[in-house]
């Protein structure tokens, strides 16, 4: 069943889709978005309920394979030590993300030039900076201006910083003694009432959905406004493939509703915002006579160069009761002390550290991710010494692009509508392993300087693939990139990709603030070039 044509069709109602929808709706475009999940009611989020830690491990888990909800698709992950994480709903993965909102650094855009490895981006930090300011305002960011790890800003975060807690204070004092960088973390979490949303209450359940609406999720920050301006959002809409005409332009998307009925949504321009697993999956599914290896794939790079930020956790235990089950999750503070390359360390690039809360009693009592089990009489001692007594450094290692890390379409596993599942093939690089090993030791020193009497380390956490990046990279050369510098496919003049797939390198920071800034930049370009835009006849 064909529908009324859209000026722009967006696939995916997460943060990048929301940013593009709002910008284009403001400019008067007729926008239609297809989202395979639905709307959520934050009253249903488990964070303010007694069964929070139980439900966070199943229906609210960050892994779609664990959730197995109707809106999800399975991911074949037998060939990866890191599981990709995401959420499928209006708001996308911002429903369950932590809300940490650091920017990439200037050197992140010039990795080839500075370190002789990987690639440079087709834009630099200063070109993206005005978009960071605008998306910071849209999402609502709390933070202390003036971090000397970044170039000076002409615009401050719209809200004052969130508190850093007793654990943050201990570590901040330690870094002052060590002469190491630290800074209160920038989070897309309200510290004061902002844009009709309430401030954070420090419940620390951000990764199970924010009951207060204080954390910026695109279902709150963007979609109501875009819909108010005329955008149409269709939920329960699972896109099977993009269709093309004889000229190779995308004519729209074939999709299935919740009952399995097939529809076709025609559009002049199509924008993919389905994350760096879902987007290449859809491009690979969209084969045709002129593109037998998938749409926009003349470079052969669709689905290649997957990056996920190998993640280690270093936990310090303190004698004091820190109540570290509370606080934004999000991060309390960050350190970029060892972020930039120093080749004497035996690797290039670096990692960002984020200090996070430590969870409730069920998380504390179960065998820890660092491998410790405590049963029998000492179980009680274990819980009493751990619950609220911890400070956790999460270490995000820059993941350099490698074509061997890629996704393919499974020949055996499908979703509920017989659409092939994505298959992830990923290995941690030696450079990243050496990097994490170095940073683990420095994080240990940090926590010991803060007074920790015991350190527990998880050297590579399996369920840490929050940051899905790189599977349809940007670049100026169509032979070595999928997208141009404006996120438009080199091969298909009316196809854009605005999610983390576009990343050239991963940086070592949480990527959502950069993904949405890039998406807004792409949307501005669509508006500015609308009269030159090729469209199907």
């Amino acid at each position: 069943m064909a529908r009324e044509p859209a000026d722009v069709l967006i696939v995916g109602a997460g943060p990048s889709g929301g940013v593009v929808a709002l910008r284009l709706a403001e400019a008067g475009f007729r926008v239609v978005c297809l989202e395979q999940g639905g709307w959520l009611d934050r009253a249903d989020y488990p964070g303010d309920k007694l069964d929070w830690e139980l439900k966070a491990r199943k229906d609210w888990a960050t892994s779609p394979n664990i959730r197995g909800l109707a809106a999800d698709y399975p991911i074949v992950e037998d060939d990866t030590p890191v599981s990709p994480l995401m959420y499928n709903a209006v708001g996308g993965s911002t429903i369950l993300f932590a809300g940490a909102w650091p920017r990439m650094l200037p050197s992140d855009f010039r990795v080839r030039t500075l370190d002789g490895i990987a690639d440079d981006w087709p834009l630099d930090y200063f070109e993206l900076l005005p978009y960071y300011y605008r998306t910071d305002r849209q999402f609502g960011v709390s933070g202390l201006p003036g971090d000397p790890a970044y170039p000076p800003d002409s615009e401050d975060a719209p809200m004052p910083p969130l508190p850093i807690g007793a654990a943050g204070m201990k570590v901040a004092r330690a870094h002052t003694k060590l002469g190491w960088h630290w800074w209160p973390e920038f989070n897309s979490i309200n510290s004061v009432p902002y844009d009709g949303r309430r401030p954070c209450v420090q419940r620390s359940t951000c990764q199970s959905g924010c009951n207060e609406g204080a954390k910026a999720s695109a279902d709150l920050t963007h979609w109501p406004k875009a819909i108010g301006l005329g955008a149409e959002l269709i939920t329960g809409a699972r896109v099977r493939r993009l269709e093309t005409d004889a000229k190779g332009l995308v004519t729209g998307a074939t999709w299935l509703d919740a009952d399995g009925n097939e529809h076709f949504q025609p559009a002049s321009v199509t924008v993919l915002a389905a994350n760096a697993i879902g987007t290449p999956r859809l491009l690979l599914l969209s084969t045709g006579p002129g593109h037998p290896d998938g749409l926009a794939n003349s470079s052969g790079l669709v689905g290649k160069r997957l990056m996920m930020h190998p993640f280690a956790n270093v936990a310090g235990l303190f004698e004091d009761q820190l109540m570290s089950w509370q606080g934004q999750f999000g991060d309390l503070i960050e350190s970029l002390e060892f972020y930039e390359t120093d080749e004497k360390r035996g690797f290039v690039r670096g990692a960002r550290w984020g200090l996070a809360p430590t969870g409730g009693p069920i998380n504390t009592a179960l065998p820890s991710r660092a491998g410790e089990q405590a049963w029998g009489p000492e179980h009680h001692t274990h819980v009493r010494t751990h619950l609220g007594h911890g400070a956790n450094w999460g270490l995000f290692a820059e993941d350099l692009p490698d074509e061997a890390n890629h996704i393919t379409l499974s020949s055996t596993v499908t979703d509920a509508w017989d659409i092939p599942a994505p298959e992830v093939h990923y290995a941690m690089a030696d450079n990243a392993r050496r990097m994490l090993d170095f940073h683990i030791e420095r994080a240990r020193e940090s926590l010991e300087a803060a007074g920790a009497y015991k350190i527990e380390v998880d050297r590579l956490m399996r369920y840490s693939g929050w940051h899905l990046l790189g599977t349809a990279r940007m670049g100026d050369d169509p032979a070595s990139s999928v997208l141009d510098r404006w996120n438009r496919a080199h091969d298909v003049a009316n196809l854009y990709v605005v999610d983390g797939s576009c990343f050239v390198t991963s940086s070592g920071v949480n990527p959502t603030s950069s993904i949405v800034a890039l998406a807004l930049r792409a949307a501005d370009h669509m508006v500015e070039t609308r009269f030159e835009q090729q469209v199907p006849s």
Partner: protein
Amino acid sequence: MNTVADPLATLDAVERTTFSAIADHLIPAAHGMPSAAEVVDDDRLRFVVSARPDLFEPLRAALRADLGDDVEARLDRLGRDEPAVLSSLQLIIVAGYYTDRGVRERIGYPGQMAIELRSWEVPPYIDEGLIDAVLARGATWRDPATGTRAIVADAPRTYAERFAAPADAPSAGSPDAAPTEGGT
């Protein structure tokens, strides 16, 4: 997923006895705390299975008779052959125990509390001079133009200097307070 209205009613007396023995083994009474068998009664078990119906079948599997009478041997065998079943069993016992009000009171855990922020107050790290110490070290970002640590002329070296400068900042509380976005 079990669809029986009250799945616990389908556990027989032997299975319930086995459950209590395992619960006592994993979390015995000690250090002033009750055992899990004392705490995780039918109500607590029902609470857990109601929140997580997917856990009931692993629970039944963990309690089956062919695993023998020796609790430690049963847990060893589950850990070796059926780790997912063992993990589910541990989660059921731990969740039943730590969602009990009395246990929470004894460990000093009030739950995830809603705490009002006092964002108008100067943060203690500024009062202690911890931000000044970071600013005093100067810029640390790597300048792509030179490949070396950036030099920022006139960079503020204290928090007071940073905020003495006129800020081109929007007032807090609304994205509309910010400058108009570019384009149409």
